[in-house]
């Protein structure tokens, strides 16, 4: 077994909403080896997205240890966490979350603004990422001029462009028709198999989960079982 890119030990996550405290994750322990494509499944409210947020460094645990790409995330402050995200994680969301006023190419360039690359290098890298996801011909188009599938490819290119260690995908096919969803899933599978990207994907869709190498099921804030490699 290769080294774990994601390592969680006894992770708790509790939210306080007004006077109420909600226990979302309880004592969660998990290892995801480097280069694995994992699908996180489970009913709404089971804690999938919370777990994804913790793995992606968008949120911090109430208790426990989280180590991703060799970095203890539970010990980082907000600034360090932002820098860590810029260097190690790419995010793909259900609704693409592209900047509506920027072209596809400019959207993909966004993470590169945080690097020391020149304008020309940023453009070259953005175009390379768009080419990789098969949408270079739409580089000058704005998100409202793209179909859902195309927009999600741009979002994937944006997630890839800084060459992150880990891709974190939250329902990436949830807003797409079957054909577009399959295209996006094939693309993620290709990135995992041919480019060695580690991927953690939250999905409700069993067909989407089949593209992953392993399926994890959650319910009431805990992992039910660890699936086996397909």
């Amino acid at each position: 077994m290769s080294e774990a890119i994601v390592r969680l030990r006894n992770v708790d996550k509790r939210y306080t909403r007004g006077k109420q405290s909600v226990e979302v994750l309880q004592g969660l322990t998990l290892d995801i080896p480097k280069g694995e494509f994992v699908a996180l499944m489970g009913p709404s409210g089971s804690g999938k997205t919370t777990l994804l947020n913790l793995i992606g460094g968008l949120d911090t645990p109430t208790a426990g240890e989280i180590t991703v790409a060799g970095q203890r995330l539970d010990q980082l402050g907000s600034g360090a966490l932002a820098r860590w995200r810029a260097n190690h994680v790419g995010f793909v969301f259900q609704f693409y979350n592209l900047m509506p006023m920027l072209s596809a190419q400019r959207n993909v360039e966004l993470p590169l603004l945080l690097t020391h690359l020149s304008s020309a290098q940023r453009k070259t890298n953005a175009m390379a990422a768009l080419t990789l996801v098969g949408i270079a011909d739409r580089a000058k188009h704005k998100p409202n001029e793209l179909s859902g599938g195309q927009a999600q490819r741009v979002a994937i290119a944006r997630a890839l462009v800084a060459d992150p260690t880990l891709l974190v995908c939250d329902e990436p096919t949830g807003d797409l028709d079957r054909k577009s969803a399959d295209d996006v899933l094939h693309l993620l599978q290709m990135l995992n198999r041919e480019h060695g990207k580690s991927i953690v994907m939250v999905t409700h869709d069993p067909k989407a989960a089949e593209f992953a190498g392993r399926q994890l099921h959650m319910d009431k804030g805990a992992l039910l079982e660890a699936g086996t490699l397909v």
Partner: protein
Amino acid sequence: MKYFPLIWATLWRKKTRTIFTLLSVIVAFLLFGMLETVDYAFSHPSAGVTGADKLITTNKYSITLPLPIADAQQIRSVPGVAEVTWISWFGAYYQESKNFVFALPVDADSYFNLHKGEFIVSDEQMQAYRNTRTGALINDALMKKFGWKVGDKVPLHSTIWTQKKDGSLDWTFDIVGTFSVKDPTQASAQSQTLLFHYDLFDEGRSFGKGSVGWFEARVSDPSQSAAISNRIDALFANSPNETKTQPANDFTMAFVKQFGDIGFVLRAILGAVFFALLFLTGNTMMQSVRERIPELAILKTLGFGDGMVLELVLAESLLLCVIAAIIGLVLSFAALPIIKQGLQGMELSPRALIPGMAAAVLLALIVGLPPALRAMRLNIVDALADKR
């Protein structure tokens, strides 16, 4: 610079709203530029009397109260006074009240002796002026403005002085010559000036004979101006016509202040305009940031730190305000000739526009800071919760 395309694109995310906001800020800064220019003109007036060696003596209680012409002899006798002349406010216009003419009745000998070397007049025309009782010497710019020529008769309507012969307010002068000024900084101040004989004025008016509006004195040693002023005023202490003597520039300021505290009025108007603008622009910026919460959350997700998000929102506010301010101030600069028509004799300067840029930056920071702080404090998970 690398963030500029992002900031620029964000600024134009809602084009219509941005255009209307820009227009409102442009209009505010156009007004700011114009009022600042007017304020500058009123706070740096140049009514044709300049120089550290010039003193003006007026009635102690008001420059609208006259002084006896005979006081000139006593002022001349004060040690340190090199020359004295006297002038009255004629208050005239040509044909229509908008055609203001800075007409001054002056005593030719003492006036030109006091202002020796300041005016450019040909000897021939100066001689003609001295020889013509109804003669007038007129500034080149004023001649050009009304298309007058030497030899023309010019009727002027005084707003104060009726004629003894028929009670008319209309006075007619013969143009015998033109003049210009050597000091280019005085060109604008003198551009409306018409000089005519005090004797004609004094003998022709139906009231006020033997009185003057003010005395102008030239001192031999400008460093002694304060002491000489005191000596002049001491001469007339406890007399029916007590005097107030002050440097020429102070007199000009006091003259302008007859109209009230222009600076205060202008600042009050500007204050109201900018107060309204703060709410308008501030509300627009808040609304803009509110609408973009998911986008700001995405930037944070991608690794943009809290400080950088704050800077991006502030930069957007700065860009909006500075662009609008530059356009507004340039327009107000372009409007200078129009303002000049309404402020004849006043010196206008685009230097008055410099505070505009400082105001733009201040405005940007005030309206940009609350939404920028909100963006900075944004919690990614909460902000994305509705968007996913």
